């Protein structure tokens, strides 16, 4: 049986698809073109045609890829695309599956963005430690944005709803176009010169990268960095990140979110105040209760109920102390007495009586010896004396006078007259005899011959 030469459409399509899918070039393709027939499907996928002067290709960008887009693809937009080409079997159509897409012509903008970001990051403009603290309850809020449009409305209504007591000042600026950056920068600088605001919200609603570009300018970044007033940035949608967002003290995903960050909910604050008031009342009540309990306890305490016990105990203490005192005192006394005893016995050992007795004995011996010696001397002298007396008697003139001799003296003197030459006739002389004297006058003298 001959083989059937006909194949099904499905088989053919699958064959073609396999050809596409096996071609490496088609798996990673880079394209430049213009968008048309752009359809944003409600489920998130995007369908469009990419074309140039001569050709077109049907394209799809699935939600999983297009949610990273930093712009909203629009009709007629020039784009750069990266993706793959394959076949959509139900339609037998080859088509482009877009994975990445950037607006063409602003490729330079991305480059500039990355360069400026690197530069400022290196300079420390994004440093977390440089971020200022957002005040918890700002009274005055400056909103630097376009005075028209969704952004300012979202911010104002959100602040009104949450914290109506805050005063909001809108500082109108251009948020897109060539003068936008300098306008925004001036407003930030001006707000800081005036110093009337507790916090600034700087931003705008969503838009294309070109529309948001002012917030990627260095001049805006530097004004935000130098601002003394804390700044919340709110540029575009959640996926939009600008340089301003990196420099700002807080980045809000949307203007509404910025307002929610800027102000607390007044009811929450009221609730917090009420809570504290409750805690205050509870604390003082419990404090007083505790003090009362303490007082009760004190009143019920042993000391209050049995005050005498305390006195008794003190008395006992006193007794014990006195005992100790006495013990100490008698111990001291004993020690002193002992010392005195020792001194007395030492004194007695050294008493002079013995030496005195010794000396007395010696003295008596000496006296006896002296007496004996004296008697000896006396006896000796006495006999000598007698002897001498005898001799003296023998020689005494008196004994001679016994024998009839007399002695003549000058009258009134003791001068013995031994020669006739000693007297003149008429001189009075005394003549001593053995039994008295005679007063005589010399009548004449006669010298004897020799």
């Amino acid at each position, binding site marked *: 049986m001959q083989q059937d030469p006909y194949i099904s459409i499905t088989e053919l399509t699958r064959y073609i698809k396999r050809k596409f899918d096996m071609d490496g070039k088609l798996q990673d393709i880079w394209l430049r073109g213009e968008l048309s027939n752009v359809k944003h499907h409600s489920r998130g996928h995007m369908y469009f045609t990419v074309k140039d002067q001569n050709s077109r290709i049907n394209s799809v960008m699935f939600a999983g890829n297009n949610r990273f887009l930093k712009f909203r693809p629009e009709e007629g937009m020039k784009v750069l695309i990266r993706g793959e080409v394959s076949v959509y079997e139900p339609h037998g159509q080859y088509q482009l599956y877009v994975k990445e897409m950037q607006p063409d012509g602003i490729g330079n903008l991305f480059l500039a963005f990355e360069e400026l970001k690197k530069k400022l990051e290196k300079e420390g403009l994004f440093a977390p430690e440089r971020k200022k603290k957002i005040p918890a*309850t700002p009274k005055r809020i400056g909103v630097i944005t376009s005075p028209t449009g969704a952004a300012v409305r979202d911010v104002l209504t959100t602040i009104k709803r949450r914290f109506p*007591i805050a005063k909001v*000042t809108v500082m*109108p600026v251009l948020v897109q176009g060539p003068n936008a950056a300098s306008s925004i920068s001036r407003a930030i600088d001006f707000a800081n010169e005036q110093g009337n605001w507790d916090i600034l919200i700087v931003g705008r609603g969503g838009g294309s990268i070109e529309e948001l570009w002012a917030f990627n300018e260095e001049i805006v970044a530097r004004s935000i960095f130098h601002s003394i007033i804390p700044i919340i940035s709110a540029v575009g949608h959640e996926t939009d990140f600008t340089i301003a967002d990196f420099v700002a003290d807080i980045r809000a995903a949307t203007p509404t979110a910025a307002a929610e960050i800027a102000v607390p909910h007044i009811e929450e604050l009221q609730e*917090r*105040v009420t809570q504290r008031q409750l805690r205050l009342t509870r604390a003082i009540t419990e404090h007083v209760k505790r003090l009362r309990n303490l007082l009760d306890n004190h009143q019920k305490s042993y000391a209050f109920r049995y005050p005498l016990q305390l006195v008794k105990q003190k008395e006992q203490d006193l007794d014990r102390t006195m005992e100790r005192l006495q013990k100490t005192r008698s111990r001291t006394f004993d020690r002193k007495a002992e010392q005195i005893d020792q001194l007395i016995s030492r004194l007695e050992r050294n008493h002079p009586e013995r030496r005195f007795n010794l000396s007395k004995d010696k003295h008596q011996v000496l006296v006896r010896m002296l007496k004996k010696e004296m008697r000896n001397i006396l006896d000796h002298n006495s006999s000598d004396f007698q002897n001498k007396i005898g001799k003296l008697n023998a020689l005494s003139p008196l004994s001679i006078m016994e024998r009839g001799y007399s002695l003549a003296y000058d009258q009134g003197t003791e001068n013995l007259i031994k020669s006739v030459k000693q007297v003149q006739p008429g001189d009075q002389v005394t003549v001593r005899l053995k039994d008295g004297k005679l007063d005589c006058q010399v009548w004449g003298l006669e010298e004897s011959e020799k």
Partner: protein
Amino acid sequence: MEEKKDQSFEEAMVKLEEIVGKLEEGDVPLEESIRLFQEGMKLSKLCHDKLQDVEKQMDELLKENGETEPFTIQEED
């Protein structure tokens, strides 16, 4: 401690929190705790007042000459 008229809501809240904390710790002498309680009540009233009695603020628009005018949102056309 004298009551400061220009005390901000935050300052009053911080002070109030301190007082509540002290009282809750509980080792404050009685007279001191009564004084703290009174001050705390004053502060909480001040905080309530700041949140309630203030008139709702009007939004304003800053003009180029630095003056302000009332601001109302205009829808884009």
